[in-house]
């Protein structure tokens, strides 16, 4: 794989190492393109009826903790001694939320994966890079970006914002998250669907290791909430080829002590057939409910994969 990432300079804060300069360079070259692309896949071309942040004032709202202090209307405070937040008519159409799977299975680090700092990327790292790139891309386009990390439950929910300093919040969150427990995607998706009220773009980054029927049901929930969904399915190359030969003990990354001893050779065809049928189910389900399904193999450098996806997306829009 010649698309390995180079080490980032030392002075860069650690969370910003997720934005690998070279990788970001590749994507930033696409920024314009990406912008156009993003515009292309926003949920509607009309002005959004929702309130947001923009130059055009809309109304006042009482301050609530967590609101940016810059939005306080000091004049109103001076007059009434109360905190009011100025609300503006939303300018952007896009509110994106990235759902990053941090379950145990995402920790799988195949030998064949694209390398970062000389070390092959685990699925989670791959997904994290994807998420960081998307955060940067979307924020640069003045779009609102939120982040949900989850395993068997939602671990962290950061609502979408457009502020540029929001990037550091998100990147820090991404940086600090480590894959952990068992995954139960469907309940998490249902929960997220309930929590993200405003319709927008949901980018799910996951290996989707759950029952495909449940996942599809959860995706349907998103679609029911009128969300646009991009499903970025990250699989390790080994999971797709099952190249093992000698008698092996497969230890479950999600449940400690759960392991299987078997002869991989003898099981390969059955395993691959299971994987194939799983992928087919997911893809078919996505196609039926107009969810944009984007499979990623960790073998492919995420930058190039993402760029090519965006390019592909654009070509679709243009048509």
């Amino acid at each position, binding site marked *: 794989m010649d698309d390995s990432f180079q080490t980032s300079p030392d002075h860069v804060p650690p969370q910003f190492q997720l934005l690998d300069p070279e990788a970001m360079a590749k994507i930033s070259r696409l920024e314009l393109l990406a912008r156009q692309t993003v515009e292309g896949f926003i949920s509607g071309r009309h002005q959004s009826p929702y309130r947001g942040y923009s130059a055009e004032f809309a109304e006042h709202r009482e301050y609530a903790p967590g609101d940016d202090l810059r939005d306080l209307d000091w004049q109103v405070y001076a007059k009434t001694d109360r905190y009011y937040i100025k609300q503006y008519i939303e300018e952007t159409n896009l509110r994106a939320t990235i759902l990053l799977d941090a379950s145990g299975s995402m920790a799988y680090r195949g030998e064949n994966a694209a390398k970062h700092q000389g070390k092959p990327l685990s699925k989670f790292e791959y997904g994290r890079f994807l998420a960081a790139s998307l955060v940067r891309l979307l924020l640069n386009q003045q779009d609102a970006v939120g982040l949900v990390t989850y395993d068997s439950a939602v671990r962290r929910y950061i609502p979408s914002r457009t502020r540029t300093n929001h990037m550091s919040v998100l990147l820090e969150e991404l940086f600090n998250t480590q894959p952990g427990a068992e995954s139960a995607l469907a309940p998490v998706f249902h929960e997220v669907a309930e929590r993200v009220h405003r319709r927008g773009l949901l980018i799910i980054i996951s290996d989707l*290791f759950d029952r495909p029927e449940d996942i599809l049901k959860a995706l349907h929930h998103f679609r029911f909430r009128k969300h646009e969904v991009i499903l970025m399915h990250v699989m390790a190359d080994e*999971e797709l080829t099952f190249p093992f030969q000698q008698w092996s003990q*497969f230890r479950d990354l999600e449940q400690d002590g759960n392991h*299987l*001893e078997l002869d991989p050779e003898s099981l390969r065809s059955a395993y691959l057939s*299971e*994987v194939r049928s799983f992928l087919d189910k997911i893809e078919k389900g996505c196609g039926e409910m107009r969810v944009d399904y984007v499979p990623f*193999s960790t073998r492919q450098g995420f930058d190039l994969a993402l760029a*090519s996806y965006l390019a592909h997306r654009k070509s679709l829009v243009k048509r």
Partner: protein
Amino acid sequence: MTFLKMSMLLGVLAIAIPIIIHLLNRSRPRPIEWGAIQFLLASMTARRRRVKIEDGILLCLRCLALAALALAMARPFLPSMSAVPWIFILPGILIAVLLASIATVLWPNEQLRRRLLKIAAVMLGIAVLATLLEQRIQARRWMTAAGGGDTVIILDASLSMTLTSEGKSHFDQAIEETQALIEKSRPGDALSLILGGPVPQALISRPTSDRRDVLRALHSPECRPTGGMMATLEALNLAASLLAEGRNASKTVVMFTDGQATGWDAQMGTRWNFLSSNFKQLPTPPRIYCRQLPHQDSFRNTLVSGIRLSRSVIGTDRPVKIEVTLLNSGNIPAHPSALELRVDGKQIERTPLVKDLVPQASEVYSFNYQFETPGYHVVQAQITSDDDLLADNSLERIVHILDRLPVLLVEGASTERFFFRKTASLIRVALTPRETPDNKSAALQELPFLVKPTIVEAANITTIKDLSPYQVIILADVSRLPATESDRIAAFVKAGGGLLVTPGARAEPAFYNAWQTSAGETILPARLEERSYPSDPLKLELHSFTHPAVKLIAQPDQSDARLGLVSGYWKLGLDPASTEVRIGGRLESGAPWLLERHLGKGNVLMTPVAFDRRDSNLSSLKCFVPLIHEMVYFLAAPSLQDCNIAPGSEWTLSGLCPPEMGTSRITELATVVLPSGEERSLSIKQDKNKFIVRFTETRQPGLYHMRLPTALALAAGAASNNNAEVLFAVNNQPEESTLTFLTDADIAAVRSHVVLFLPKSLDELLTAFTGKVPGQELWKILVLCALLILLAEVVLTRWITLHRHLHQDNSVALKSPAESVQAMKAKLTELMEK
């Protein structure tokens, strides 16, 4: 079975290699941290069991192949007389290996694994113990004394040994193999040789260590097929007596035979018991090695199985019917072309044969022939047939043609005035019709009657000084006899003479019922109880006429016996316990009409009627003449010389010394010419007025000529123009011509009495004879098995590989837009340039 290289059995441990590899593989699995457990679980539920079975079979095959190779290298050996069935050993080891492999496959299941390994260990243990036991038994069984042993070689010289196979007769092959055996014998071995014909003959009667003597005897002219069958038991008994003379402790009998069952009498346990007891008297019971020479499956043979003459008493007076029986004893249809009948070498008749004979079918051909001269004649029947066994295509029988048959008629009714009341006279007329008082025609006078009747009145019987010239005495309506006479007649019957008693009304029951021999044997077959005169005369119950003397007149289409009526007869009292009496015919009332008693060498016939007209009308019927003749012939038969004997039986010729010899002693010798042309001289014994010649060397089937002094020869019935020769024939047994071989049941029966080993080849025989264990090595089969198992392993491995990858890609392709990186780069560049 055993192993020739026991140490190589350790090679079986090589099965540990695949087992250890298998276990090592499983004991140190490579750890892989894995996320997609759900797919593994899903695929395993479908595949795991099948994979386990496939892997198990593969491991079993590998272990079995190694075990088979190791076993082959240990050179398994199956002794010909295996004491421990091979099923306990070879399959035992292989099953143990199989169980060990299965236990390895099921390693995680500890309970089952332990159980399987235990069974495997037990089976292996049994196999090893069985092998050791077999080795011990075989070593003991085939051990020979170091110095040497006594061996009797029996060569089957029966007729069937002349059959050829591959251009060589069985006998020649037996000679060749015997020579090989003699050459293989050790210096200390003492050998003797028996020619096994109908009577075994020891060619070397004392075991000798000089091989040259044995070889000389083997190639001597005496050593040739004798014909007939081999009397196996006699040969073995002779062998036992020869072995008893040997000084070595180890005793062996080697037989070369075609394995024909005839002569073995395998199912006659008592005879074999006798042999076995003979064997037990030897220092060590001998082992019998019976080499069965290979024989052809198809056998074409027709033989003359018998020549039968319609009467036993034959004269020159009338023709006799000669019946020749042909038999196809082969197992394919035969078509003999002609049957030729010769008398004294002169062709009498030649019948072309047109019918095919199917296997085991027989056909009888009849010829009528009237002998012209008295004396001994050779009747020979010969078929022209192209078959495997030529010696039995011809059969010879000696027929003694009588010059005259003297019969003494004792007349009890001499006082009767009417001729028809004189029984003896009526009988004489029946015997010699020409001598009736009324008929003196010249033509009848010329008729050559065989029977020479002499009538004597009962009162004058004392005038007959010597009864021995007579062959039959008839007591016709005799009331009683003086005690001296009755004793003489009793002695006459015991010596082989015939007696016919026809008691009439005048008979005194007190005399007849008390008539006994000096030893207290009753003479008459039944007691005279009372006279009976039925109001209606009784007919003869012809269906009950089974006695050979009355069979002829019982034929309703040829005889008028049905018209016979009995108006007065004696009621007879029978002793139900007596076994020597038989009833030959009855009256319609059920009362016995003809009775026979066997007494000494002779026979007594009795009718409850005298043949005069007061008792019955029989004498006026046409059947009376044949009836009296048949009775006389029947009674005369025992006194006739039997000229056709079985091989090995004694031939005795006796006769009355001619009166002109007076009391002078016989000094001349008799000479017997054997079928082979050799001559034997015999002394002639004399007993009062009788001479007796005994000849025992009758083992060779064929025609024997006995030359006697002319006077004696004539007295013995030889014709004067016959070179004063008496002929007799030793006959082949027709069973010898039927090729039936020893069955497994026969061999098992024989083995229950003696130690019998049947080597399959000469090599095996020689191996056993030289004290090694005969048998066959099995390593080739095992190598073949190992190769087949390896082939199966390769095929199975290939099949499993193919099956596991069949129609399956080696990976799942993601339908990613980034499938082709280069293509994507190009596309991106293009887009950016726009």
